[in-house]
């Protein structure tokens, strides 16, 4: 749609420029950036809310507007240039770039892969091999949790066919686990395990980081935005990473800013703080510990690319290289 409207936008800008004439004020207006976050507002986006609330974006000459989109929509909107920057899964960037969608991952936010497998602590499941023959709840056979599950099982010489997969398209698999409908379930480390723990349900968490370091959600942009707004995007990345550093040091401050932006989050402060603290844990890894928050681990991307290329039904071309997927020059 954006491409269809582009000639009209250009025409209106030209008309606007002529209409303003030489007498127009010379102050540089802020650069508008549309930022796509996840499907719904959440404390997991506290760094963006903080940078907005504390004026870091405004100080950098940016006029930032948030927009909530599901990941597949976001990737194509970024490719079109209809959204400037987005929080997109690294595991979506790889197949999208493989199909020619011009997007680049420019800063890591989740240095550890957030999608995990959870099991009741007393289920006898403590490693991927223990999942053999057990039932597992998952929203669907797609997306980051499906990729994570295949990586996890492959490490034990298993495949999803060795499990009884039960679909929870309403994302109710954690409730299914709690009610004993399934032996294990997928979830996001900074969400379901935290909520189950707060509800007094002890879980064992199996993560994929030590097996295949899949790229988690991070800042992603379209190549047209990279060309047209490079300095503004660089300023946005710096302001966001500054907010991440501050929240890393003081999660309560991040929660306050999140509640200011999304007042509904204040209804259960204790739960939201627990989710935020678990989210901050996801920002940290040995790699970001050495190179700083936001750093992109090229070796991990390379291994993930190889893994995803080998998955059944993979459509990732052999010519796709990490250079085509990431762009580190916008990091401070």
């Amino acid at each position, binding site marked *: 749609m954006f*491409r269809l409207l582009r000639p009209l936008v250009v025409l209106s800008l030209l008309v606007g420029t002529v209409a303003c004439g030489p007498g127009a004020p010379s102050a540089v207006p802020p650069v508008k950036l549309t930022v796509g976050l996840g499907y719904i507002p959440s404390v997991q986006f506290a760094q963006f809310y903080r940078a907005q609330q504390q004026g870091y974006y405004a100080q950098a000459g940016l006029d930032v507007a948030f927009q909530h989109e*599901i*990941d*597949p929509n976001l*990737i*194509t909107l970024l*490719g*079109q240039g209809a959204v400037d920057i987005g929080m997109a899964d690294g595991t*979506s960037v790889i*197949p*999208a770039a*493989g*199909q*020619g*969608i011009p997007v680049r991952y420019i800063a890591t936010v989740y240095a550890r892969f957030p999608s995990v497998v959870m099991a009741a602590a007393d289920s006898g499941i403590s490693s991927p091999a223990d999942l053999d023959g057990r039932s597992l709840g998952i929203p*669907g*056979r*797609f*997306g980051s949790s*499906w990729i994570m599950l295949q990586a996890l099982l492959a490490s034990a010489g298993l495949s999803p066919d060795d499990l009884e997969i*039960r*679909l*929870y*398209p*309403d994302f*109710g698999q954690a409730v299914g686990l709690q009610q004993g409908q399934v032996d294990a379930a997928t979830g996001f480390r900074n969400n379901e395990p935290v909520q189950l723990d707060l509800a007094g349900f002890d879980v064992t968490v199996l993560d994929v980081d030590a097996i295949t370091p899949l790229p988690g959600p991070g800042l992603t942009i379209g190549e047209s935005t990279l060309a047209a707004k490079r300095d503004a995007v660089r300023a946005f990345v710096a302001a966001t990473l500054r907010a991440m550093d501050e929240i890393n040091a003081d999660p309560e401050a991040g929660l306050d800013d999140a509640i200011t932006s999304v007042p509904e989050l204040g209804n259960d402060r204790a739960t939201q703080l627990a989710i935020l603290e678990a989210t901050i844990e996801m920002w940290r890894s040995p790699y970001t510990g050495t190179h700083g928050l936001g750093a992109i681990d090229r070796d991990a991307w390379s291994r993930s690319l190889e893994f995803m290329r080998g998955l059944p*039904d993979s*459509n990732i071309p052999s010519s796709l290289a990490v250079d085509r997927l990431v762009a580190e020059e916008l990091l401070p």
Partner: protein
Amino acid sequence: MTNLKRLTNALLPIVAAAVVFLAGWKALVVIANYPDWFLPAPEVVAQRFARAWLDGTMWRHASATLVEIGLGFVVGAGLAVGVGYLLARSRLAERLLSPYIVAAQATPVLVLAPLLVFWLGTGLLPKVVICALIVFFPVAVATMVGIRSVDARLLELGQALRATRSQVVRHLELPAALPQILGGMRVGVTLAVIGAIVGEWAGADRGLGVLINLARGSLFDIPLMFATLATIAGIALLLYLVVVLVERALVGAWR
């Protein structure tokens, strides 16, 4: 006029419209220089369509959707004919049921689908129920209108000949109402296709709705998404033609 000429005259406008549509689509892609991930050219979609059918991908999903459509249509249309007859012949039934049938029809199936999957699981049953629900209304209304429009003199003739209730229904009312009932089924069968896709979006392992989501959200394979849309349109067209042929055969036979 020979049969060949008739067929040529009938097909010519259809083929001409298809050619104009494809030429316009191709021209748009070339002039705007759209990449495949934004709007693939017709020949790119055709190649992907052929590949998906040849490697078995499309059939694996299409067969699941066809089963859902078939069962949903049979259940929905079967119930609708019975209820439509009741509405036509019983004022009490009409007063009791009509508001609820209209309210059910006005409830978006997109809202009902996740609830049905929640209650009935992610198997075949919720898809069949969704298809049946969506098929029900047009067929029930068409049956009611058809039965009510049966010539009263025919019914008087039946009574004069001392026909039983069952004979009146089978030999007078249903044959006379058949054109309207099958008209409702023509609409219903295309709606059943939509019902199956919506049901699959709410939760499924296989089906053309699942393939659209995979192509769009996991594989970012937009030509495959278009090829799946073409398959869905083809299925709807085929099923519509089947109902038309059945209509011609049955209505012709009874008349």
